[in-house]
């Protein structure tokens, strides 16, 4: 299975500024002093050796993931999580892969806040007749939310003008969905207006998508239920937007979690990989890289058994399981 990240930023998309790029260039050129970089190969080798926060960026699109079976074939049925601004680039990639050949898209929504739906009006497959898009959600108002964001005066193309066949499937927690070879269950999470996590199983691999979820640390039963939901997952995509100190004080009840709680829950659940996700929009690449380093250190300090691999999501990341 391949998990492909198209949008990883929390709350609102962000973009690099000229000043950010200038800092990266200065850091890269400073490091290059004294090195012999007179061939394309040497330059590429040098660039690849730089820290990710210097040579790349964690990106700025809001939440959007694609899941693909690792069988070398794309097939005509696709699994997506959320339709944040990353859905625009995903749509372009899907068009490049499939052209106008009819495809079926199953989208699993964490919730309906704007950063998780805003990419849909720019999702090109939605405009192509013959395509089928099924939007699965725990929210009864899902259809209205999607139509509303394309209403006048917010967007020039009304929902009714989309060419694809679009369906909405309201899911009850505990219902097990079977889509081709994927089996999917949903869990209600603590967030303003509720959110839902998704556990996807296929080919003996398990991916959990759990974003926009606040955890009540004192609630032992809730902790246990999340550990069960994450149990033995190969990959847990986790809302690590805030520091723990912020999450339990000034940003309590804002509906998000921390890197610390992500590690603790994954350790409790014996998960294999934790992906830090839904990055704080105020954080630059250096800050996100620092959070990643610190989270790995925290995992090492608290490890009791098998190591938990930790990575930080960025737009364009692909994880093969």
């Amino acid at each position: 299975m391949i998990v492909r990240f198209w949008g990883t930023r929390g709350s609102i998309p962000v973009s690099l500024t000229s000043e950010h790029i200038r800092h990266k260039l200065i850091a890269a050129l400073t490091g290059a002093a004294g090195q012999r970089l007179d061939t394309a190969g040497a330059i590429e080798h040098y660039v690849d050796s730089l820290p990710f926060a210097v040579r790349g960026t964690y990106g700025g699109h809001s939440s959007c993931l694609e899941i693909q079976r690792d069988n070398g074939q794309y097939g005509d049925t696709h699994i997506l999580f959320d339709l944040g601004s990353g859905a625009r680039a995903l749509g372009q990639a899907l068009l490049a892969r499939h052209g106008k050949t009819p495809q079926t898209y199953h989208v699993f929504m964490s919730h309906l806040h704007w950063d998780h739906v805003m990419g849909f009006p720019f999702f090109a497959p939605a405009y192509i007749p013959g395509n089928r898009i099924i939007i699965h959600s725990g929210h009864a108002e899902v259809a209205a939310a999607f139509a509303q964001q394309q209403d006048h005066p917010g967007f020039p193309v009304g929902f009714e003008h989309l060419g694809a066949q679009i369906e909405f499937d309201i899911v009850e927690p505990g219902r097990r969905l079977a889509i081709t070879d994927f089996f999917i269950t949903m869990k209600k999470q603590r967030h303003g207006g509720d959110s839902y996590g998704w556990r996807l199983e296929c080919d003996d691999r398990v991916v959990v998508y759990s974003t926009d979820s606040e955890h009540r640390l004192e609630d032992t039963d809730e902790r246990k239920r999340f550990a069960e939901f994450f149990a033995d997952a190969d990959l847990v995509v986790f809302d690590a937007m805030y520091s723990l100190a912020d999450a339990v004080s000034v940003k309590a009840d804002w509906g998000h979690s921390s890197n610390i709680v992500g590690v603790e829950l994954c350790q409790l659940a014996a998960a294999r990989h934790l992906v830090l996700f839904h990055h704080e929009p105020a954080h630059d690449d250096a800050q996100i890289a620092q959070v990643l380093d610190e989270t790995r250190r925290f995992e090492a300090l608290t490890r009791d058994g098998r190591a938990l691999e930790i990575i930080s999501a960025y737009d364009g990341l692909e994880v093969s399981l």
Partner: protein
Amino acid sequence: MDVTTRQLGNVLVVALQGRIDQATAEQLRLTLEPHIASCSVDAPLILDFSGISYISSVGLRVLMLAARQVTAQHGQMAIVGLQPVVREIFQISRFDMVFKIHESVATAAAALATPAT
């Protein structure tokens, strides 16, 4: 988790020993409750963590609630003697920005006795 208290002038020192995790966080909350209630600018509280080997998120939350209550009642509280692992956990969770952290009871008591400028 073991707890001992001693009075150092007007400063109350609460010394904790063991691990603060899911199993002991509620005990910590109940232990601190009366001491937090009586904490004031004239009767500061020092939490001696030199015997604490580990603290989890749920334990840190108890400390956060205590800190907020102390602030609301204009009291003074400090933490002393963090073991290296616990000190790192405070840093990674950003709790080092929430508390006044000192090396020893003596330095904390001296700092708390000095009026803030």
